[in-house]
């Protein structure tokens, strides 16, 4: 500790050291050094340097500090290994690519993979499985690839993981599932990644440089630490106000489900799916849902309110239907989605019976209605962050206003 204290003396300006070093060392010999003493001497050195530095030197010092922090931050970001496989989709499977993808990244399939491969162990310890699945979806990438021979329907399937062998294993499993459904061929099997994917370090460092430089410029502009104290105070006040608002706002939970059409005749199925959804979306049906679950009891236009929160979306040309509903009560959200899913499946069977078609257009439940664990609204960290940002901006504006108010010429009476 004493050695560190003596080393910190060299941070003081040379002119100051020439005058005070001996007596300052004598004082340091007398005191019992603690961490507080260390920070105090460091702070003293910094203040002395600031006094003699030119504005440009201060800006450069802040920019260097920003770069150092950015490098430290970039080192903390995990560097995942990415394994990739290239597959060619068969002619039959090309039209159903989206449906195949939906099947591979379905909740049921990903849950099975997570459990069998024991993935995301840390995340599963403190996150609901729904959030872990969302994380896994982000780690899976399916992208169209331009092949060397200009072939169509070539896609790359990749998975990012902290473990290289694990990334390769999961990519192999996802690829084989993809090939099973789409009847495609493997062009390039899943690679074993040798080097981890580095974060975009130059971008992070450049951001640190710019942020540090700006902070330095503001420091010079406001001439000292006072405005930073105001900024910190207003920022914290903004964050507290944001937190208060976030906790007062009522929570909303969103439940979702996915239904797919597994059959081969997608073009014909599209019209049937649209018809089924229109029937389920009818006024009479919406009124029945509102009454069954006693939704929005004290509000006028209850069906209109339901339409605002219930979304039945036909995606990928009718190969899938995504149902989403949000409500203050997570159980009600799940029940409404389950009800709509039941009606859609029932209607698909009725539609098939009514049409007397030889082709079976019966829909299949891919992802059952979820019971949401976390509220999707309000996004508390974002509200608190916004409060903090508004507070900081307010402090800077206050500083600018005071600076220019001081500079205004005084008009003689």
């Amino acid at each position, binding site marked *: 500790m004493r050695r560190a204290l003596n080393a910190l003396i060299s941070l003081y300006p040379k002119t100051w050291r020439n005058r005070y070093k001996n007596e300052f060392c*004598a004082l340091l010999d007398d005191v019992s050094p603690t961490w507080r003493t260390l920070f105090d001497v460091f*702070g003293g050195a910094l203040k002395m340097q600031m006094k003699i530095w030119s504005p440009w030197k201060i800006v450069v010092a802040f920019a260097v500090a920003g770069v150092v922090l950015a490098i430290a931050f970039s080192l903390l970001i995990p560097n995942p290994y990415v394994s990739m496989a290239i597959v060619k989709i068969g002619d039959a499977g090309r039209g159903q690519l989206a449906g195949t993808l939906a099947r591979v990244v379905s909740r049921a399939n990903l849950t099975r993979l997570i459990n069998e491969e024991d993935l995301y162990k840390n995340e599963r310890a403190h996150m609901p499985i729904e959030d872990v699945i969302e994380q896994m979806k982000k780690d899976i990438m399916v992208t169209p690839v331009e092949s060397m021979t200009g072939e169509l329907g070539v896609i790359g399937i990749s998975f990012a993981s902290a473990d290289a062998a694990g990334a390769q294993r999961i990519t192999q499993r996802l690829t084989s599932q993809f090939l099973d459904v789409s009847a495609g061929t493997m062009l390039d099997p899943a690679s074993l990644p040798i080097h981890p994917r580095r974060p975009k370090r130059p971008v992070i460092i450049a951001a640190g440089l710019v942020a540090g430089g700006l902070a330095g410029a503001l420091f010079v502009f406001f001439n000292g630490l006072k405005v930073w104290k105001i900024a910190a105070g207003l920022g914290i006040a903004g964050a507290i106000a944001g937190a208060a608002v976030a906790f007062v706002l009522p929570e909303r939970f969103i439940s979702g489900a996915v239904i797919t059409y597994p059959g081969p005749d997608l073009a014909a199925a599209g019209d049937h799916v649209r018809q089924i959804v229109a029937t389920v979306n009818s006024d009479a049906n919406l009124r029945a849902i509102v009454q069954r679950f006693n939704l929005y009891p004290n509000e006028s236009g209850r069906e209109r309110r339901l339409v605002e929160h219930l979304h039945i979306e036909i995606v990928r040309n009718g190969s899938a239907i995504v149902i989403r509903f949000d409500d203050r009560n997570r159980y009600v959200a799940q029940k409404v989605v389950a009800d709509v899913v039941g009606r859609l499946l029932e209607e698909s069977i009725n539609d098939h019976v009514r049409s007397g078609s030889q082709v079976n257009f019966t829909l299949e439940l891919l992802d059952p209605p979820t019971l949401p664990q976390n509220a999707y609204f309000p996004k508390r960290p974002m509200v608190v962050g916004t409060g903090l940002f508004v507070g900081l901006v307010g402090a800077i504006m206050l500083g600018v206003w005071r600076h220019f108010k001081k500079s205004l010429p005084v008009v003689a009476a």
Partner: protein
Amino acid sequence: MTRNNDPALLVLASLAEGDKHGYAMMEDIERFSSIRLGPGTLYGAITRLEQNGWIAPVPSEDRRQPYTLTALGRKSLENELETLDNVLKTALKRLKHA
């Protein structure tokens, strides 16, 4: 206005009693104000006060450098204490009448 926990004011108040070196000032200030100044803070104040001509070093054989209050420093301290005294008296008077 100077705050009563301003290191410069505390150093001036300590030297009003007599010449002292850094460590003696730290001990004295802690005794009369319960504030323990760090070495960096103390020498920041000493540097500022010496530049203003409010304190001056006293010749010494020891590594520990004693300082003394100059006439200008004494005048400044008197002004500061007068202001603080006015604040104290007014606040006490108002508290009694409240």
